[in-house]
């Protein structure tokens, strides 16, 4: 079941001030069975987009389709979507069993069917032992699973996930990334997944949409986003550490655009041997490697170095790179 967003715009009115445009003509499509990750910084409109698809916000313009049906004017409950909220939104006074079955009971599904569906969803997520407990008695990871079970039990046309892993610790987050992705694949349900975490974007999505200021900056497979960023914003947003984007002039090129080099494509060397040289002003020691911050004239470039090969703080160092590793952008920041 596909999900299509066509030219959706949404603004919020503020008292005595100019309206804020949260979405500006967003186009997006998720094919049947795809997991589309919508990523962007805070305020980029990604949650607003998800809420418009869910029917929790009304777009000012545009159209939304779920499973080929225009749902733009339909209420949330009639869109055949299921949502997993950032804070899980579990009903604190209901047991896990009652939380999972809430939507089925609301839709007056036959009681005999409700029980088997709840058991099936709970088994899929490994939470059979928690069915009689209340949310307050569960860990963060267990609550996450209950929220997922509540979504899958209705077998909707699409899942909408709003930063579902943001409240989990790093280790659990890594585990749940794989779990959610595996679950979505096995169910074959189309999913829209909102996150601010680029690692989730690159590892989970079939395609990734990067939002900034309510607009889609780039939409494509993770590898394409990483290898061919459409502009300097995408180039800097995707990749850890972020890509170095500097004026072309720094590389001795007379053109007026920008050059991008990923930290992993910059090697530290002796000052005289480098194409660029500067002073190390900061180091981030990450155990197996060091991220060195090198001040080159007025710019600061980041480079990865092996721990035993790092120049050292305040040391002068040279930086080398291959021309093939340089990304070129015009004066407006668009990829050339």
């Amino acid at each position, binding site marked *: 079941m596909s999900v299509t967003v066509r030219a959706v715009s949404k603004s919020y009115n503020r008292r005595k001030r100019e309206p804020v445009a949260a979405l500006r003509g967003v186009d997006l499509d998720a094919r049947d069975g795809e997991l589309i990750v919508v990523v962007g910084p805070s305020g980029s409109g990604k949650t607003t987009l998800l809420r418009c698809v869910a029917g929790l916000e009304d777009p000012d313009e545009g159209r939304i389709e779920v499973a080929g049906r225009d749902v733009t004017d339909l209420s949330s409950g009639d869109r055949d979507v299921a*949502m997993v*909220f950032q804070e899980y*939104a579990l*009903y604190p006074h*209901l047991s896990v069993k009652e939380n999972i079955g809430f*939507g089925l009971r*609301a839709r007056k599904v036959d009681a005999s069917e409700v029980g088997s569906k709840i058991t099936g969803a709970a088994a899929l997520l490994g939470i059979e032992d928690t069915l009689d407990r209340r949310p307050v008695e569960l860990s963060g990871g267990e609550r996450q699973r209950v929220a997922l079970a509540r979504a899958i039990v209705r077998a909707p046309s699409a899942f909408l996930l709003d930063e579902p892993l943001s409240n989990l610790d790093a280790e659990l987050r890594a585990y749940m990334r794989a779990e959610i992705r595996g679950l979505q694949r096995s169910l074959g349900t189309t999913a829209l997944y909102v996150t601010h975490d680029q690692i989730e974007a690159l590892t989970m999505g079939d395609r990734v949409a990067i939002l900034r200021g309510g607009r889609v900056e780039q939409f494509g497979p993770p590898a394409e986003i990483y290898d061919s960023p459409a502009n300097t914003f995408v180039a800097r947003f995707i990749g850890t550490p972020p890509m170095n984007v500097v004026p072309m002039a720094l590389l001795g090129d007379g053109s007026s655009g920008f050059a991008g080099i990923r930290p992993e494509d910059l090697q530290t060397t002796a000052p005289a041997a480098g194409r660029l040289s500067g002073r190390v002003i900061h180091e981030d020691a990450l155990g197996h490697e060091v991220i060195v911050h090198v001040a080159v004239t007025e710019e600061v470039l980041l480079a990865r170095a092996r721990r035993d090969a790092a120049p050292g703080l305040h040391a002068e160092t040279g930086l080398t790179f291959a021309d093939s590793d340089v990304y070129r952008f015009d004066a407006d920041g668009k990829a050339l």
Partner: protein
Amino acid sequence: MALPYAIGLGLLVALPMLAAMALAFTEFNSIQAPRFTGLDNFSRLVGDDAFWRSLGNSLIYILIAVPLRLVAAVGFALLLHRRERGIGAARAAVYLPSVVPDVAYALLWLWLLNPLYGPLALALGSYSPDFLSEPWGARVGIAVMGAFQVGEAFVIALAARRMIPGPLYEAAAVDGASPWFTLRRVTLPLMAPIMALLALRDVILSLQVSFVPALVITGGGPRYATTYLPLYVYQSAFRYFRFGYASAMTISLFVLTAVVIYVQYRLARRYRLI
């Protein structure tokens, strides 16, 4: 810092309470000195039909007024919880009757329910019932009066409603729950602990707030239908100058209130409302 409050509490609450407890064992008419009579006042209470009748009236009042006031407070809270234009004025309108002095409020209702020239009579014309001249009409009328003075309970219920996280309602909407389903399965259960506390509080209040309307509007009639226990205490003390007997009734009222509160508390604990 607490000293002024403690002094006030002592002088205005503790001392009169102790005095009342002492007077309950005496015969005192405020002219002669109190005469110790042991448990005579309490044994007289047992055989006093007027006492049991007024106690029954008070319990009837509680049974009618408490649910009515709770429904009104929670109902207004559910209607007025959103942040919208004009909501402040609406909330103020709900709260306003609570700040009107009790006597003025009672006189207002006396006019409203007047069978000859009250607005209700003029609106209903020949179909206008004379509430206050019928026992049950008067009982219900006084209970309904109290249903509009729910300012404090409304504010508490409003806070309880607003404390329910918005995402729960969004989750219910996406799950396809109707507004009625959401009210039954989400809103009311989550507000239940506060509603239990409001009911607890209202039972205590109901034993007191019935006094002014009964005194001003019906005088305890018709045929003693609205002679509630506080009014009977007042009449015994200040009309019949039987302060000792009135004090004994006050002690009984205190014990009755404590018993009712305890029963409610145990029920609320049993059903995990508090």
